């Protein structure tokens, strides 16, 4: 934290100063300390156990509910004091400066929320029967102000410490606008519980927060379970894909890289998050059907017979057979089935052309061919990225959708490409590329592979 810019330091001091001044100004008369203590404890507990939604993202805690409850029960100054209890959170990790800033930020936003509540006509104190539904609008205003002030102050500091690009991204969550919207919504949802705590206080006293937060803690538990399962799931799919690849020595890691390439294209053209996920799995599984192709055909050196070639051409259909029962998006299935179609209609298995080919399949085709070209094959060495791009451009419009080729090239330029290590097949030195070209059948993924018509299909 030592290398903070002067602007960042200035900003942090301003926030801290504002918080201190506003709280110190009072008034403290008529402040019910009982509430402040209970809600402060609640904030400390929530802050100590904040759930991290995903690695490196904002944490999500129920302290905003406690702060909003205090807005209703004890007013702006009390709320600021409850917010300041953040400082006592037992969570390890944040540095002293971060802790100070967080404390000031929560105190300040709670104070502002309290002011908004009063300005909109809310009345401080235990809500009674007559408070509903009149209290809802001031409270909603307070909640909005709290969430907005929180996010605003936080983006400010991130912007100043990490630079505009990263700051905005970090503040919004790395998944972009979709997630940030969800995060804001979940914050607002959490905020609503503040009112419930305040309302229940008159019936069950300090048990109110406990009772209100049980369903939320359970929900959080379920979300954590979900995240864990999802990680496990991804790892398992990855491992199984690798198992599939052991059949063909030269394609090790191919699925993984195709998956990455497809995601690059999908992000570049602005696909929705959910579809990006789907295409990631589609990339991982696109060649699963190769298992239906006998190993000796896959590894064969020399010209393939028509039957053998037919077996290779069937692999997208085999892949579909395997993954059909998985509850994926249908688009992923279509992508797996059609990833060897060509824009000019001369691909397989169906010979679809142009827009008839599902979008996923067109994306996968580009990533698939690119990875094939930049990896070593038994009959040739890996081509450099530049050459592979030129090749993509060459076949753009006949084999590939030009829009996706462009998107891929743009993404490549920005993010770069991790080429696989050249493999060393057991028992043979790394082969010189030219000598073998004549010997073997080109990889089915290589663009420009001569087309063959098979009668038996």
């Amino acid at each position, binding site marked *: 934290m030592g290398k903070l810019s002067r602007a960042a330091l200035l900003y942090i001091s301003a926030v801290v100063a504002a918080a201190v001044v506003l709280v110190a100004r009072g008034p403290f008369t008529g402040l019910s300390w009982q509430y402040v203590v209970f809600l402060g404890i609640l904030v400390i507990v929530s802050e100590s156990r904040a759930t991290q939604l995903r690695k490196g993202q904002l944490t999500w805690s129920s302290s905003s509910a406690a702060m909003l409850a205090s807005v209703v029960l004890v007013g702006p100054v009390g709320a600021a004091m409850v917010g300041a209890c953040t400082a006592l959170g037992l969570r390890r990790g944040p540095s002293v400066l971060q802790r100070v800033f967080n404390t000031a930020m929560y105190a300040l936003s709670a104070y502002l929320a309290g002011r908004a509540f009063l300005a909109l006509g809310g009345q401080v104190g235990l809500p009674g*029967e007559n408070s509903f539904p009149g209290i809802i609008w001031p409270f909603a205003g307070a909640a909005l102000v709290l969430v907005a002030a929180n996010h605003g102050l936080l983006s400010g500091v991130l912007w100043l410490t990490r630079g505009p690009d990263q700051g905005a991204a970090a503040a919004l969550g790395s998944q972009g606008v979709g997630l940030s919207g969800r995060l804001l919504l979940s914050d607002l949802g959490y905020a609503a519980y503040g009112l419930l705590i305040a*309302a229940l206080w008159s019936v069950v006293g300090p048990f109110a927060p406990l009772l209100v937060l049980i369903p939320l803690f359970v*929900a959080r538990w379920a979300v954590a379970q979900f995240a864990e399962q999802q*990680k*496990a799931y991804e790892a398992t799919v990855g*491992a199984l894909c690798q198992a599939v690849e052991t059949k063909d020595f030269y394609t090790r890691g191919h699925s993984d890289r195709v998956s990455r390439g497809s995601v690059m294209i999908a992000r570049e053209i602005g696909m929705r998050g959910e579809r990006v996920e789907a295409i990631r799995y589609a990339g991982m599984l696109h060649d699963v059907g190769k298992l239906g192709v006998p190993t000796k055909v896959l590894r064969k050196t020399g010209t393939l017979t028509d039957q053998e070639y037919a077996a290779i051409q069937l692999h997208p259909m085999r892949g579909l057979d395997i993954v*059909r029962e998985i509850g994926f998006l249908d688009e992923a299935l279509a992508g797996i089935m059609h990833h060897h179609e060509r824009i000019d209609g001369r691909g397989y298995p169906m010979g679809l052309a142009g827009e008839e080919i599902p979008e996923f399949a067109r994306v996968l085709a580009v990533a698939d061919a690119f990875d094939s070209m930049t990896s070593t094959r038994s009959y040739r060495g890996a081509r450099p990225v530049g050459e592979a791009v030129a090749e993509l451009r060459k076949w753009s419009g006949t084999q590939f959708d030009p829009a996706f080729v462009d998107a891929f090239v743009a993404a490549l330029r920005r993010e770069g490409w991790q080429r696989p290590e050249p493999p060393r097949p057991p028992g043979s030195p790394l082969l010189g590329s030219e000598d073998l070209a004549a010997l073997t059948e080109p990889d089915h993924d290589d663009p420009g592979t001569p087309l063959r018509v098979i009668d038996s299909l």
Partner: protein
Amino acid sequence: MSERRHELRRYPWRVRDSGELLLVVAAGVCLVASVTQTAAEGLKDPRIAIAFGALIAFGEVLRLNLPGDRESAPVGFAGALAYALLIRVGTHDVHYSAEQVVTVATIGMIIGALPHLAVGRPARVSGMAARLLCVACVAYIFRPLAGNAAVDQHWGLAASLMVSLTVLALLLEAVLTALLRVDEQRARFKVALVDEMRVQLPLGAAVGASALLIAFAAEVMGLAALAVFTAPLLVTQVAFRRYAGIRATYLQTVRALAKVTEIGGYVEPGHSERVSRLAVAVGRELGIHEPQLLELEYAALMHDIGQLSLHDPIPGGATVLVSRQDQQRIAELGADVIQQAHVLGSVAEIVRRQNEPYRAVDVEPDAAGAAPDGNRPSGPPLSSRIIKAANAFDDLVGSSLDPDRAAAAVQRLRLDTASEYDPATVEALSRVVSRRSVVQM
């Protein structure tokens, strides 16, 4: 899972469903009595009754499938419990009978089940009956007390009574569901109950808390409490739905990818699925708990995944027919694949040891080249023993349904129980198989 249920439903006399029938009859009797009583007395506080009925119906529409083919309706259940526990709405003391609670809950549930029926989903009567019985139990205890002056005035007494009744209702639901499972899946009651509690506990806590919240908050907010405190439960439910969704996808994916060995011609079509089904049935017979049962299922599905690394498929894929070294090599390769996922550690271990003989006494140390620790203190894990037996059985019988062939295969496994197969596992398998032949005849 649904397939399996389907299979059981096929045979006409339905011995398995007797428990379900009993439960539904009990709920039905309770219901008829309540409806008659309510009809005779007339509906009290109709506005409140309609509001809660609507909430219960809404909750029933939003049913949730929890892992392990469990259905629950958290919102509906919470609403019904809250209705049973209500003392006051605003300043108005409510006095309705337990019978009215049962009637309103039932009508709500039936209305909520209609959309499910309309889109062709099963109505799941047994789950509804179980929930209804729990609500009825709470209502019959609490309703007579609700008008009691002592309960009305002592907040602490009322609150502790309500909390304990809620806990009671949730426990009762777990017991009833466990009983149903025992009946349906031939699980052991104790095992089923523990599994049920483990799965239901988190959601149950949320349901109970929401029911109490609605009942308490109605005093402050009136009927708005219903909508307001259903919201947290809805959030919880959404989170659980996503969790259950990824669990289901996980299983589907492993099932699908386990099939690659079949499509690659390494094993007979349907082998992994059959072995896993048999292994799970045997595991249940042996009283394995659900989390381990899931691992067993994964391991059984992927037990042949190591064959992918073989250059040429084994003829017919029957691993029982190849040499022990080869079997062991396949198991090791498969375990390595699974290990790469880093998350299924015990599954990898189960797969790795699936070929180890039950008693290692007569194995020549050099023959089992892959068993470096010659004097293992213990045999292979139970799951490995189950997979070994189930795999051998399927290699011998295949997809055949011939009971004589099955009996002969069991006999052959039995002959090998001195060293190769675990006798207890083989006996469990024999019971499962003989049941199955009755079903399929």
